[in-house]
């Protein structure tokens, strides 16, 4: 017996899903393999690297530290839901645009988790300081970028989102 199966209903990026899951299945594995949303990545499975970060009921959470069964009835947002639509040539979320302009990613593996944390930051704080951005980023490990351009991209996105809001 694989730990018992439960039926869960979740809304992911606005779409409703009902699926059976083993009780011990991690939320990250559920998203990646059961829902084929492979944008969320696993880097450590012990809650330090932040690559697996998604939004659960609107707040950031490490999906390697949650069981899928815990999210029954919850709303989950992943990186795949950020861009306004799915067409490849279309516009992206201002954060994604800023990352693109400012070279905020290199291998791209840690990026989705960081984007979700920054989405939360920019929603909660309109004009974050560099220090506030670095504090949020401290929950994420990146081996490629040295964080510098990620910080620049976050601040640029904050400015452009703030302009859009007006």
């Amino acid at each position, binding site marked *: 017996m694989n730990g018992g199966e439960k039926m869960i209903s979740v809304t992911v990026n606005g779409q409703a899903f009902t699926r059976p899951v083993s009780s011990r299945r991690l939320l990250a594995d559920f998203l990646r393999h059961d829902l084929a949303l492979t944008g969320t990545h696993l880097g450590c499975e012990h*809650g330090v690297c932040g690559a697996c*970060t998604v939004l659960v009921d609107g707040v950031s959470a490490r999906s390697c530290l*949650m069981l899928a069964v815990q999210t029954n009835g919850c709303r989950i947002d992943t990186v795949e839901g950020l861009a306004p639509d799915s067409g490849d040539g279309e516009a992206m979320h201002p954060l994604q645009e800023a990352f693109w302009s400012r070279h905020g990613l290199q291998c791209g593996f840690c990026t989705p988790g960081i984007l979700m944390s920054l989405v939360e930051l920019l929603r909660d704080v309109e004009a974050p300081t560099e220090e506030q951005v670095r504090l949020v980023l401290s*929950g994420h490990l990146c081996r490629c970028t040295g964080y510098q351009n990620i910080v620049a991209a976050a601040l640029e996105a904050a400015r452009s989102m703030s302009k859009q809001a007006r």
Partner: protein
Amino acid sequence: MKPPPFHYHAPHTLQDALAIVGEHDNTRLLAGGQSLMPMLNMRLLSPDHLVDINRIPELAGIREDRGGIVIGAMTRQRDIEFSPLIRERLPLLAEAITLVGHRQTRNRGTIGGSICHLDPSAEQPAVAMAMDATLTVASQRGVREIAMRDFALGLMTTALDDNEILTSIRIEPWRSGHGWAFIEYARRHGDFAIVSVAVLLELDAASKVVRVALTLGGVCPVPLRLREAEKQLLGSALTSANVAKVAEQCAGIDALDDPQVPRWYRRRVAATLLPRAIAIAAERARARDGDS
């Protein structure tokens, strides 16, 4: 690193949860999961039963009760962080909570989970010890109250029986105008503290200490109140000589000792941070006195 198999329970009431832990052996409570899930993923634990207590509304919440603040055990650290009541009445806790892990940690982590896990370096147990919190614990047999100093028995060992659940933490706020400081030394932001210091102070009009609590985290298996040093400071001014005398006592602490962080280092950092924390708390106490 995937968890081993277990029976999963998600009770909706405290009574149901108590029935499960009362009935089964080798159970673990799943609160915020920030400490438990890494251990499950690494297979350091193999509970037969995992009791998810995240769906019990009565276990969460922050309220005032007869002058004290009662915090439900399942209150998210995030809610503590953003609570105006906590910021106003328990500023030490408000300051300490921002040092707990990262945003993701605090979004899910709970104050009860941290206190029951009782990691020697954790901030919330240190605050609970600093403020002489009273913990309410329930089982199928009933409810009992335990003072924090009696709850924290030893390294990651609490006074909870296997079939008991922590339901709430009660803290008596210090008088309006008190000074506070929570500082820590960690290698990186969000890491567990190597040493933390919590200071609470009340000064009289002559800037003499009328009440003080000094607590060290990370130094001993459980948070350490420096009760002798507190007694010495009562009635005195916070001169650098007096503060230095307090700091010197750190040299005698029976501190944790391991090959990575030796005893002498914890004592030294405690001696470094204690005066800094006292200075911040004193400044805040004076600032507030100045208003009145």
